[in-house]
């Protein structure tokens, strides 16, 4: 069993390194298949591990025991094995898709190498046994996200987006480190099992502090308000990257972290409620932003932010089971939507503006699959996301404010996604349509099937059982149907306005939302300019002044000293004589002075 875990974790790393260094020598398609096969390997192993109810912890390397207990340990329990299963499953499907999607791209081998590396780090994060290994995985996925966003590095906007993602992520990481250090300082240990037992001995203020700091780290990674700005720009990367990283896996790392540390957050209800509030606000805000977007991938990006907001909202008010279930469902349907978007974009020859699409009747399969994804996103039964998303909303009735925000957001969610659906697939044809690539379809079809069947993942509430022993109380039917009603109203509104109609979208509110409430603009102009100015000052004084000054100064000092020393070497013998006698006289004087 333990061997399976180790193999499953490290096989993506192995193929990443091999394809990175030697992949250019073999035919490109083979590299794709090898990397995909390694992920499939991991997936099978994780399936076996998930079906086995045994829970264990592996110690791979004992680093230090005193004064802090930090080791390289991996944990396999229900939470981590299910998450690892989903991660490897969705990764496998995305790999399958990108074998043919990226076929004509130059840096094919590099792409697969980075993708496998990313899967390794995500699995490391998932299976980590203590906060340090989780942080290593955290940083690793951030790095791979940068590498993959700026994959087409020759395009300036892609490089900038990659840097933006990395920097914003890093801001969150600083707070994450604060959180880790505060726990480390008090408990001298970071192992999840051991912290769980000892958590009651830490004073409540420290717990609050580290809870907040870790959450800010999660804000950075999972693109919540205000550190969400990197995710829409991250759509500069290839579509499989968006599907895998920015829908299913990396952005869910923040939620996973909170789920892992549920025992911590159970002790600090105020902070938890704050998390929930932030999450629901983000969900509402980004749904508004998605409504006014014209770029298909950016709509999906804002949708991701919104759904993550749902997950945080649920996790904040202790609905861990449904939040995790929503994480899994979201992985399926968001990846599905992204992959279908990829097919659409490919068949329209890289056109991403939905206003320029229309009447894509030829792409039958894409039509059905997008519809499945959109229905799943809106939370319509019998899709599994009804149980998760509307489940979160209806259980949040215990905090009425959250309930209100999330219900309105459900309306907005179905509105924006069906707006996109109707504009893309119906109406007049605006751009020339080519045939859809049949080979690319197998991956989304699998995801579509999983989206439909995902409700079975939670049979008998086994996901909720991971967190709490007893099932949550079933709510009255009235309350649990209200969000469903709102979603349906959203779909109907979209149908009325956008089906086969051209509607002018203008007006003050539209303008405000269009510019994302000028948030991004203010941030990028003022704040970023300020940062650049500080950088300039640093460069001038510290870089050029101190550092280079020291280096140049040492060089100049050397030259000066050597000039002095050279001046001793006149060829003139008289000079030598003078020096010699002067020195001798002084020596003599000092010696003779003793006898005075």
């Amino acid at each position, binding site marked *: 069993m333990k061997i399976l875990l180790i193999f499953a974790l490290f096989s993506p790393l192995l193929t990443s390194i091999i394809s990175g260094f030697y992949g250019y020598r073999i035919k490109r398609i083979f590299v794709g298949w090898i990397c995909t096969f390694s992920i499939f390997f991991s997936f099978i192993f994780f399936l076996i591990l998930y079906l086995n109810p045994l829970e264990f912890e592996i110690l791979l390397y004992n680093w230090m025991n005193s004064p802090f207990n930090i080791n390289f340990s991996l944990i396999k329990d229900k939470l981590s094995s299910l998450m690892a299963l989903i991660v490897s499953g969705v990764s496998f499907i995305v790999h399958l898709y990108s074998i043919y999607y990226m076929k004509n791209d130059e840096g094919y081998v590099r792409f697969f190498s980075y993708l496998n590396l990313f899967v390794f780090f995500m699995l490391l994060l998932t299976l980590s046994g203590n906060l340090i290994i989780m942080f290593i995985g955290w940083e690793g996925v951030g790095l791979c996200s940068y590498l993959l966003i700026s994959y087409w590095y020759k395009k300036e906007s892609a490089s900038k987006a990659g840097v933006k993602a990395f920097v914003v992520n890093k801001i969150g990481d600083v707070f994450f480190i604060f959180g880790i250090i505060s726990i480390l300082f008090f408990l001298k240990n970071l192992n999840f099992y051991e912290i769980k037992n000892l958590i009651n001995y830490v004073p409540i203020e420290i717990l609050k502090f580290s809870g907040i700091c870790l959450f800010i780290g999660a804000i950075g990674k999972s693109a919540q308000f205000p550190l969400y700005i990197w995710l829409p720009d991250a759509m500069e990367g290839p579509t499989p990257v968006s599907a895998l990283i920015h829908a299913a896996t990396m952005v869910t790392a923040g939620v996973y972290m909170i789920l892992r540390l549920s025992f911590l957050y159970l002790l600090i209800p105020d902070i938890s409620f704050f998390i929930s509030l932030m999450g629901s606000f983000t969900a509402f805000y980004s749904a508004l932003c998605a409504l006014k977007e014209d770029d298909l991938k950016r709509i999906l990006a804002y949708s991701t932010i919104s759904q993550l907001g749902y997950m945080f909202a649920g996790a904040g008010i202790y609905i861990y089971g449904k939040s995790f279930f929503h994480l899994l469902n979201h992985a399926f349907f968001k990846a599905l939507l992204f992959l279908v978007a990829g097919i659409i974009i490919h068949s329209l020859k890289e056109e991403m503006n939905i206003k320029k699409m229309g009447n894509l009747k030829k792409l039958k399969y894409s039509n059905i699959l997008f519809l499945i994804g959109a229905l799943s996103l809106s939370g319509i039964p019998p899709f599994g996301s009804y149980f998760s998303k509307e489940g979160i909303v209806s259980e949040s009735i215990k905090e009425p404010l959250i309930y209100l925000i999330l219900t309105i957001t459900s309306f907005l969610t179905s509105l924006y996604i069906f707006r996109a659906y109707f504009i893309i697939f119906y109406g007049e044809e605006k751009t020339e349509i080519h045939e859809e690539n049949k080979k690319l379809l197998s991956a989304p079809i699998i995801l579509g099937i999983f989206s439909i069947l995902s409700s079975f993942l939670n049979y008998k509430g086994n996901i909720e059982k991971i967190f709490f022993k007893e099932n949550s109380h079933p709510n009255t039917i009235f309350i649990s149907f209200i969000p469903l009603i709102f979603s349906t109203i959203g779909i109907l509104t979209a149908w009325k306005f956008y089906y086969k109609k051209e509607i002018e979208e203008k007006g003050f509110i539209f303008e405000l939302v269009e510019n994302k409430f000028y948030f991004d603009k203010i941030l990028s102009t003022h704040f970023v300019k300020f940062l650049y100015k500080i950088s300039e000052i640093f460069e001038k004084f510290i870089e050029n002044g101190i550092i280079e000054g020291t280096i140049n100064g040492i060089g100049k000092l050397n030259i000066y000293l050597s000039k002095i020393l050279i001046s001793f070497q006149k060829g003139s013998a008289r000079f030598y004589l*003078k020096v010699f006698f*002067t020195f001798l*006289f002084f020596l*003599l*004087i000092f010696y*003779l*002075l003793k*006898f*005075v």
Partner: protein
Amino acid sequence: MKELLLIFMIISLLISYYIIFSRKIIYSVLSLFLIFILIGILYLLMGSPFLFISQILIYAGGIIVLMIFAIYTVGIKETEGINFKEGIIAFLLNFLIFFLIANILKNYPFPKKFISFKMDFIFDTLLKDYLIAFEIVGILIVVGIIGTFLSVRER
């Protein structure tokens, strides 16, 4: 007797100051000649006639003559004086050291009468204990002559 010694000594000192300050080479060489003779006389008054003769022969007779020959072969007449700044510093250091040494020696007990040796005793010691030095000096002189001759001849 003691006054005589003192007079000769002081004259030689004054003449050596003249060498420092003069600009004509011939005058300096002749002053050196005078100094050697005076030192020879001092040797005589100290009770060693052999050294007196040796001094006059070797130094005054050999070295000065050689120098005059070399000067007139090469043909130098006048040269520049000394640098003022260097001179001040050098003289100061000079006198400083001199006064320090004089201070030390002031309190050192000198015997009233000096001890003189017989000539044969000296030559015995020379040829017994210092034979090697004697021979080497001889070789040195020969080497010096040959070397100078070789380095100066026209090809």
